[in-house]
C-alpha cells in the first residue's frame, strides 16, 4: 500500500475537490488533467513499459474521438457505443501499426508512428462523405449519463474513474509476468529473445492495448469538448503531449503520467492566465517560457518527477547510512 500512497493521495484529492470547489474553471482543469493523465498512462503502456516510444498516439485518440462523434452525431446512438467501436477500430489500427513497425527501433519507430497519424489526418480531413472533412464534427450535447451529457462535477468523476482504472492497468503490468517480459524486451530485446520471450508479439500486444486505452480517452474527450477537428485530434502536437506528460512524470512508472499531466497542464493554464493581460502581440511570450521550461526540466530531471522522488529517497537513504 505504501508504494501507492502517492496515487491514493492524488486520486483522493481529485475525488474530494468537487465537494469543496465548485468553480467551473478549476473543475474543468481537473477533468483535463485526469483525462490527459489517463491517456498518457495509456501511452505509458507502450512507451514506458514496452519501450515503444510512439509519437503518433494521436492516431488512436483521433479514432476514438471520431467514433464517439460519428456514432452520436450521425447515427444518434449513445456515445458509449462509439467508445466501444472506437476501441475496436483502434485495436485493429494498433495491430497493423505494431506489426508493420515491429523491427524499427528508437527514432525510426517514432517517425513511423508520426507517418501513420498523418495519414489518418489526411484521410479524415478529405473524406467529406464520411467525416465531414476539414469542417470537423460538432458533437451534440444531450443531457444524461447514457448520452454523456454531463455537468462538470459528473465529468470529474468519470475522468477520475478512467484515471484509476488506467493506473491499475499500469500497476498490473508492473507486477504481472507479461509486465516483466515487457520490461525485458524494453531493456534488451536480443537478450529477452534469447531467454525465449516472444518479444515481437509482446510489442504488438503492448501497442494494441495502448491503442485501445488511448481511444477510449479520445472518445470521452470528444463528448466533453463537443467538437472534433481532424487537424487537432490527429495532430503531432497532441501525440507529443501524451509522450511529454509521461516523460516529465516518469516513464515506466504508474503514477508518472498523472504527475506529468498535472504539472504540464497546470503550468500551461496558469501561464496563459498570467500572460493574457499583456498587449496582444506579446502573448506568445508564455509559450517561449513554456518551451524553455521544457528544455530545462527534460535536461535536469530526465528520469521524470517520479524518478526525482526516487533520487531524493536514495540520497536520503545514503545520508542516513
Amino acid at each position, binding site marked *: 500500500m505504501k508504494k501507492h500512497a502517492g496515487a491514493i493521495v492524488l486520486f483522493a484529492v481529485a475525488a474530494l475537490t468537487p465537494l469543496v470547489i465548485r468553480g467551473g474553471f478549476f473543475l474543468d482543469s481537473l477533468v483535463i488533467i485526469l483525462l490527459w493523465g489517463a491517456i498518457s498512462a495509456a501511452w505509458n503502456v507502450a512507451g514506458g513499459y514496452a519501450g515503444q516510444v510512439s509519437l503518433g498516439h494521436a492516431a488512436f485518440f483521433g479514432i476514438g474521438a471520431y467514433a464517439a462523434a460519428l456514432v452520436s452525431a450521425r447515427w444518434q446512438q449513445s456515445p458509449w457505443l462509439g467508445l466501444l467501436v472506437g476501441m475496436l477500430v483502434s485495436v485493429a489500427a494498433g495491430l497493423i501499426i505494431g506489426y508493420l513497425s515491429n523491427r524499427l527501433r528508437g527514432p525510426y519507430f517514432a517517425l513511423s508512428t508520426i*507517418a501513420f497519424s498523418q495519414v489518418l489526418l489526411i484521410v479524415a480531413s478529405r473524406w467529406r462523405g464520411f467525416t465531414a472533412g476539414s469542417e470537423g464534427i460538432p458533437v451534440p450535447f444531450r443531457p444524461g449519463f447514457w448520452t454523456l451529457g454531463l455537468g462538470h462535477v459528473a465529468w470529474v468523476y468519470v475522468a477520475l474513474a478512467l484515471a484509476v482504472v488506467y493506473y491499475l492497468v499500469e500497476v498490473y503490468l508492473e507486477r504481472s509476468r507479461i509486465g516483466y517480459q515487457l520490461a525485458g524486451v524494453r531493456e534488451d530485446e536480443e537478450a529477452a529473445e534469447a531467454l525465449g520471450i516472444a518479444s515481437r508479439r509482446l510489442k504488438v500486444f503492448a501497442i494494441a492495448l495502448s491503442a485501445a486505452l488511448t481511444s477510449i480517452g479520445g472518445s470521452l474527450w470528444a463528448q466533453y469538448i463537443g467538437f472534433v477537428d481532424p487537424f487537432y485530434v490527429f495532430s503531432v502536437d497532441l501525440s507529443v503531449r501524451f509522450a511529454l506528460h509521461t516523460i516529465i512524470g516518469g516513464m515506466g512508472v504508474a503514477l508518472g503520467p498523472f504527475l506529468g499531466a498535472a504539472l504540464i497542464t497546470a503550468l500551461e493554464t496558469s501561464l496563459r492566465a498570467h500572460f493574457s493581460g499583456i498587449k496582444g502581440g506579446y502573448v506568445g511570450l508564455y509559450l517561449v517560457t*513554456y518551451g524553455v521550461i521544457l528544455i530545462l526540466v527534460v535536461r535536469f530531471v530526465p528520469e521524470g518527477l517520479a524518478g526525482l522522488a526516487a533520487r531524493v529517497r536514495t540520497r536520503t537513504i545514503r545520508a542516513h547510512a
Partner: protein
Amino acid sequence: MDPARTLGPAQIDVLAQLFVSTILLGGIYALIAVGLTLIFGIMRVVNFAHGEFLMLGMYLAFWSFALYGLDPYLVLVAAIPLFFLTGLVTYALVMKGVIRASHNVQIFTTVGLSIALQNLALVLWTGDFRFVRPWHASVILRVGASAFNLSQVVAFAVAVAFTIGLFAFMKWTHAGRVMRATAQDRDAATLMGIDTDRVYRLTFAIGIACVGVAGVLVSPLYSVYPTAGLQFVLLAYVVVVLGGLGDMVGALLGSVIVASVEVVGSYVVGSAWKEVLYFLLFIAVLVFRPAGLFGQRGAENLGV
C-alpha cells in the same frame, strides 16, 4: 477523361514541364534535407526544431531585404558563418547537456526548442506573412514549352553544390571520417581517442548552417511566417530516411524521388492525396528498407 493518357506533342510538353518542376522542387527539398541527414545521421537525434532554423534563415533574408535592401544571394554568404555560429551556440546551450541522455530526452529537448523559437518569432515579428521580392523572383526562364523561376534554379544549383561539397567533406577529409566513425559507434570512437563532443558540435553546427542557408535561398519562393518551418520538416524526414542517414547523395536522390511522387501524384491522383502517397512511401521504406534506398542494410540500427 484524363488528357494525359494519349501521348502527343502536347503531352510531351506536359511531361517536360512536370519533369522540370520535379527536379527543381527536389533541389529545394535536398537543401533542407542535407543538414538534417547530417544531424540525424551522425547524432541520431530527431531534431524537431530543424524547421525553425529554416524559418530563421527566411527571416534573416526578409529583414536584410526589408531594412537594407540586400539581395538574398548576398545574404547567403553571410548566412553560412552566422548559422554555423548559431549551431554552435545552440549546441552549447541546449544540446550538449542531453547528448548522453536517452533518445526521448533529446527529442523532447528539441520539441521545447521548437516551441520556444516559433513563439519567439511570433512575439518579435508577429504572425503576418512576409515576402522577399528581389528582382529575380519574377524572372521566368523558358526552355521549350517549360517555364520555371530563376530563384528555383539557383536554389537547385546551390543544393547540388552543397551536396557535392558535403559529400567530399565526409568522404575525404579527416573531420568527415571522424564524423562517420562516431556515427557508427560512439564508444569505439571515444576509445580511439576521438573527442565525440567536438564531433557532435561540429556536426550540429554544419547541419544548422545548411538549413539556415536553405531558408535564405527559399525566401523568394515562399512566404515567411513563424510556423513556416512546419511545412518542410516532416517532408525533410521522409527524404532523409529514404536516402539513408548521413548519406549526402542519398539525400539529393531522395529529394528528387519525394518531389516526383508529389508532382506526379498531384497531376494524376489530385493534390488532395499526394501527401498520403509520400507518407505511404515513407512507411513502406521504413518497413522494408529502413536503411533507405541507398543506404547499407542494417545501418539503421547503428547507434540506436
